[in-house]
């Protein structure tokens, strides 16, 4: 299982908010936001809730669990 997110899209929708601005709002470094967006770092529950709070959306709308096998199939289809 892999954790996917749409933070980048949400940032764009919210007046093209930068990674640094989001990082400042939730009190982490820009690199942490970058890592989460890229799916290379899985945030803690607290951090996920803080991100959800910024975008005023439920956590499950921002983060979704995806089966890795299915992702590989999708890649093959492409």
């Amino acid at each position: 299982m892999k954790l996917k997110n749409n933070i980048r899209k949400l940032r764009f929708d919210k007046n093209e908010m930068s990674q640094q601005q989001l990082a400042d709002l939730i009190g982490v470094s820009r690199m942490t936001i970058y890592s989460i967006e890229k799916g290379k770092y899985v945030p803690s529950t607290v951090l996920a809730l803080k991100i959800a709070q910024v975008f005023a959306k439920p956590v499950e709308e921002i983060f979704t669990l995806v089966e890795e096998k299915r992702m590989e199939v999708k890649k093959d289809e492409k």
Partner: protein
Amino acid sequence: MKNKKLLINVFSIITLLLFAYCLFAYIYIQSQLTVTMPEPTRVVKILGSITIPALLIIGLYHLFLLVHALKILTTKTEKIFSSSVYIVMIVLSGITLLSDIILLSDISKEYLLWDVSLQWLMLYGFTVFHLLVVLAGIISVQKNPVANLKLFKEIDRGSDNLFLAIHYIAFTTGLVGISGIIFAMTGLVVPADFNRHFMLIAVRLALFPLTLIIVYWVVKMRNKPLREWIDEKQLADTSFGALASLFFTLPLYALICLIDLFTVWSLPVSFWVMLIFLIQLVVFSTVVIIRNRHAVN
């Protein structure tokens, strides 16, 4: 702003002139202090005593360069590595300015007793090192005008720059320390009896920049709760780095036990302790930097 720039330029020129003076004084004193002269002449004494305030002013310029480098470090993301390495060099050069004074004083006392050519060589070597550091600093000051920034400006919580800078400095410090103790143990610099003493000085000297940047970090973060000093990703990177350095050094411990068991080298325990500690520091910082910079999970 213009006055500040003018002041900095004047300070830089004075420092360069003082370097020229020191070099002239060293060459003149060296030519005069021979075994045929039982007592240094008045000119030699005056030149020598002026060298001390000259070196102290050069030390002040080092302090200015250090503040400038710290400002670049916390504000310019693309220059973290070069600034970190440069900070280590400034601190090392600054501390060795004091050893210049000690060397000069030792030479004046010992030139009649034994050969002091190695001390002169060290003095010239250190002077070239200080000069290179100052020249690099002057170029940096001209290229990066950050004089208007406050040194203790509040930084954002969990800033990447300072976190990475500490690890870059730890990495450089570790490498300098390893080179220092290996160099000390070869017996090239001092007689074998003083190896251990010289090695401890080298390690202390190497660790000074790291201590300095940690103190700077603590001062900057002093008003924040401890849990906010690093964010969760940085904490995860730090934990992974610690684990990696522990696993990396386990075979080294085994190797040292074997060396000791078969008495391959009879090196002092302090050598192995320092070596392992510095290797751990290098591995730890390297892993943290790679994980943080390349967002590895």
